[in-house]
């Protein structure tokens, strides 16, 4: 899921200077499961901001709410009145949720209450690790199901580099070297021939490097029809 971390209260408080009616909106999906922006975290942030308010006298009035999926307009629309009556909206959803509100209500000032971090998994209680970079061209079929693009600090396609020591990454000695793991995995599977193949450079144009990406599923589009019910070509 999408992993996020709440911004420091002081940073959020600075964004809200001069505002009066503040709406804090959480999301019940990724950020709730990741303990960053669900119902509980919304309540915690509002409590913390109230303390700041009491101490510094900003005159903030808070409203708080949580939507099912902040990245989808259908789930945002039901809280429209709350958004319209606020001076500022603090979104505790990921960057997608915050932008959904911002794009739907361009006049409203929407502030990110979290830093969206990565696509990751809970490794153990309270520990989340990055495992996918959404690069647009999955290569795991030849790396034993371990993504080197996200898990190698240099996104190498022909690792391990010379900095791999005791199976750990030179960038952070607590992080496993992705290519060490790939080697061990492929060995276990009897596929070490994949390690000796010279892998061509990745096509980064399929990632964000190729510009903002968009998926259009023609089979899912709602086609306009004429009076007879015949599809009209756009």
């Amino acid at each position, binding site marked *: 899921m999408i992993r996020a971390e709440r911004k420091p209260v002081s940073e959020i408080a600075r964004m809200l200077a001069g505002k009066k009616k503040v709406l804090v909106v959480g999301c019940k999906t990724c950020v709730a499961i990741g303990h960053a922006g669900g119902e509980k975290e919304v309540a915690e942030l509002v409590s913390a901001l109230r303390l700041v308010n009491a101490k510094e006298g900003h005159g903030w009035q808070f409203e708080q709410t949580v939507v099912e999926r902040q990245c989808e307009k259908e789930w945002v629309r039901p809280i429209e009145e709350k958004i319209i009556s606020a001076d500022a909206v603090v979104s505790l959803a990921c960057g997608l949720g915050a932008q959904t509100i911002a794009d739907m209500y361009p006049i409203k000032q929407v502030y990110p209450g979290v830093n969206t971090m990565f696509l990751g998994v809970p490794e153990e209680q309270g520990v989340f690790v990055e495992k996918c970079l959404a690069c647009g061209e999955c290569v795991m079929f030849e790396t034993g199901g371990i993504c080197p693009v996200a898990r190698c*600090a*240099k*996104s*190498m*396609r*022909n*690792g*391990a*580099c*010379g*900095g*791999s*020591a*005791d*199976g*750990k990454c*030179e*960038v952070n*000695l607590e992080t496993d*070297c992705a*290519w*060490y793991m790939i*080697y*061990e995995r492929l060995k276990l599977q009897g596929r*070490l021939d994949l*390690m*000796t*193949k*010279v*892998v*061509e*450079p*990745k096509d*980064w144009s399929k990632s964000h490097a190729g510009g903002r990406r968009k998926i259009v599923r023609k089979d899912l589009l709602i086609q306009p029809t004429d009076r007879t019910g015949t599809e009209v070509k756009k």
Partner: protein
Amino acid sequence: MTHVSNLQKVMDSGKFGVTGEIGPPRGADPDHIIKLARELKGSADAYNLTDNQTAIVRLSSIGSAVILMKEGMEPVVQMTCRDRNRIALQSDLLGASAIGVRNVLCLTGDHQIFGNEKSAKGVFDLDSVSLLSTFRNMRDSKKQLSGEELEAAPQIFLGAAENPFGTPYEFRALRLQKKVNAGAQFIQTQAIFDMDWFERWMAEVRKMGIHDRVHIMGGVIPCKSLGGARYMKNKVPGMKVPDSIITRMKNAKDKGQEKEEGLRICVEMIERLKCIEGVHGVHIMAVMWEEMVPYLVKEAKLLPRPIL
């Protein structure tokens, strides 16, 4: 071809090659390189110019190479994938070849987190292996990575690094093979302190027949101090410094002879490298101590350098 690399000629002719290394300064003053060049001239067949080593901003490798060539010496331009994408790397190879650079060392590069611009965005569009194959195709097939034809091919002797001491250990000879398959003609290894380990690795390399396909140059670093040796042992990922070296440096320190002992160890390493089948040269990385290279090659009886 106007001329081929002197380094290539030396090793192709079966002679034991020597490369040194010059770390460019953290400023625009060429005098540092000129001074070192004059001290080192005649001690090695070619000299590596590091490419923003450990991600510290320094005078560029190609810029340094021009200064070195003006002194009548042959550069090995190091090129890392950290700071440049495939457009810049290919462009710089063409530029390097055009100004007369004949040796390029293809590296992935130290991660930017080690340097003095920690907020930098690392590029890593390619890695050392794909950089090698890209450059080889530019030279041999006159084609850039996209497949488009070049107007003129670069003339270049292609090198790479390999670390016999990195993990996974059993993959390290295979990775060397992979680099040779990708186009590496010479290899400069990570600094060797554990020579027994290195010899075992070389035995594996010979068993695979890789030593006949590439010039392997063993990397050495003279220890300037006990602290330096300890730093390399404990702080540099992928380096192996055995306790015996630390003990020797410690005993020497007690006698006030650290530097002498560091140089002695280094000469011993070179002497051993000369005897290993399949090792065709030595790469001396006298980091911040470049001026000792002439002494080391003299003591290791590698002088005079052949003129071919």
